């Protein structure tokens, strides 16, 4: 599922509310029928994982250590990782195509590699829901595609619910099953990509005229038209 919308529409805020990182002020966020705020922090982290926009760590950590952090909600205060924990971490890293840099320092990785490691760390929580905040930000084209391929694989093969906040209409339309367009903190439209991604709705929400091209497959592609009357 994808969250789309202009800057400041509330995509990141909504993700953080869903992840239980921000207190809910109005309305409610329900996770398996229970308010997110009623979960203890550890219990919540076993069900829902959040991947922040790529981070920098003040104190250097290896990729392996960061992935192992995902096991935190499952571990006691001092218990070392069991063989099972290690297997889960390794599988998470393999799913994200990151086994080859397991022993490298995180801060030396490229943007795309970092993002994959952070996703692996979230997967190591063995959650039911995975939230990603603009995961393709600052990634080059091939890494953007790779990332969405991974997301689709996680959904299809691991039956994870994945919710992505993104600016990329084309990738969202191509890889995601359900989209919500946000504007000014409210829902402007929601539905399957084909229903939501129409030039009319996009202009309404993103304030830019677009032309729709039909690419080989049956997913739509959008090219922005010139912005009239500005500059």
């Amino acid at each position: 599922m994808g969250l789309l919308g202009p800057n400041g529409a509330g995509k990141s805020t909504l993700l953080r509310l869903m992840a239980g990182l921000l207190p809910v002020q109005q309305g409610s966020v329900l996770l398996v029928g229970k308010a997110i705020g009623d979960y203890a922090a550890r219990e919540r982290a076993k069900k829902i994982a959040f991947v922040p926009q790529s981070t920098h760590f003040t104190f250097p950590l290896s990729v392996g250590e960061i992935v192992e952090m995902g096991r935190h909600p499952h571990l006691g205060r001092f218990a070392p990782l069991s063989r099972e924990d290690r297997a889960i971490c390794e599988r998470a890293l393999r799913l994200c195509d990151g086994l080859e840099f397991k022993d490298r320092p995180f801060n030396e990785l490229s943007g795309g590699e970092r993002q994959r490691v952070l996703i692996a760390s979230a997967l190591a929580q063995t959650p039911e829901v995975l939230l990603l905040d603009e995961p393709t930000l600052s990634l080059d084209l091939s890494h953007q595609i790779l990332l969405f391929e991974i997301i689709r694989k996680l959904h299809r093969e691991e039956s994870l619910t994945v919710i992505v906040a993104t600016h990329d209409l084309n990738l969202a339309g191509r890889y995601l099953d359900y989209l919500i367009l946000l504007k000014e903190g409210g829902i402007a439209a929601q539905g399957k990509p084909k229903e939501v991604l129409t030039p009319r709705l996009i202009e309404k929400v993103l304030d830019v005229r677009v032309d729709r091209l039909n690419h080989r497959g049956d997913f739509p592609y959008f090219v922005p038209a010139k912005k009239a009357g500005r500059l």
Partner: protein
Amino acid sequence: MNRVGIRGMVLFLTAIVFIFVLLGCPFLGPTTISYGKVFQHLPSTMDNQDALIFFNIRLPRNFLAALAGGAMACAGIVFQAVLRNPLACPFTLGVAGGSSFGAVAAILLGLTLPFGGFSLVTVFSFLGALLSLFLVYSLAALLRSYSALTLLLAGIAINYFFNALVLLAYYVADFTQSYAMIHWMIGSLDVVEIATVERLSLAIFLGFGLLWLMSRDLNLIAAGEELAKAKGVPVSGIILASILVASLMTSAVVSLTGPIAFVGLIIPHIYRLWIGNDHRFLLPASALGGAAFLMLCDTVARSFFGPTEVPVGVLTALMGVPVLLWLLFNRKTYLQS
């Protein structure tokens, strides 16, 4: 050797050095004492001067150095982790300023009597440290933000405030008083009674235990508050608890020794370099290493500058600066940014 192997090795070697220094250093000093004579009759008699020096003067003082060094190193680690700032140290939240103000006020008012087994200077200095903590937390509460940056800035502000008051007290004090103030503020390990050391050790061991229990949580908080929260760490609770424990440990130590510089900054960095940033290992290793380091510094301070001794705070600062510079020049492998 792999990471885990190195970690175990460093911890083991540190423990060995710690034990040697703990039991060996009291034999070194301006007065030579013999091993045989110290343990001649146990319990030792009043005319056995070597045993008197060993048991009544050097051993308590060495224990105080160990407790102070270990506590400062642990507190430094916690502050660096929670504030995510490699330059944070136990004094970042203004504890040094507050306790200095307390001590200086007591000296200025001529309060040198003992109170409840401690000197009034110690009592006042501890109260001063508590006051500075209270002010920092009140500021944070007033701003409705307990974030790292708020605490850091509030701590700096409070520290400056108390330092100004210390300077004022120093200005109005007479010559003897100002000497006592300077002596206190450099940080030194004076002769203490074993009973004082016993009480301090209770507080330090308790504090260390609490911090160690939070090791895993601190690992995640050091990586980032949001990340930690997403991985199930009760972030604000752990931050408040760990900073409070670390600050109280610092206050207890500083009220007895004065603000000894650099131990709480340098030792954590050396061990971060050697064994990495997993607090389950970093905390005990740095505690032992910090203890050994301060005991060694104190032995040098009281042995090699006869007939007087140098305040240990001068030595730790003199040794701390080169180490800090060395870390700076090695930042490619270490403080990589």
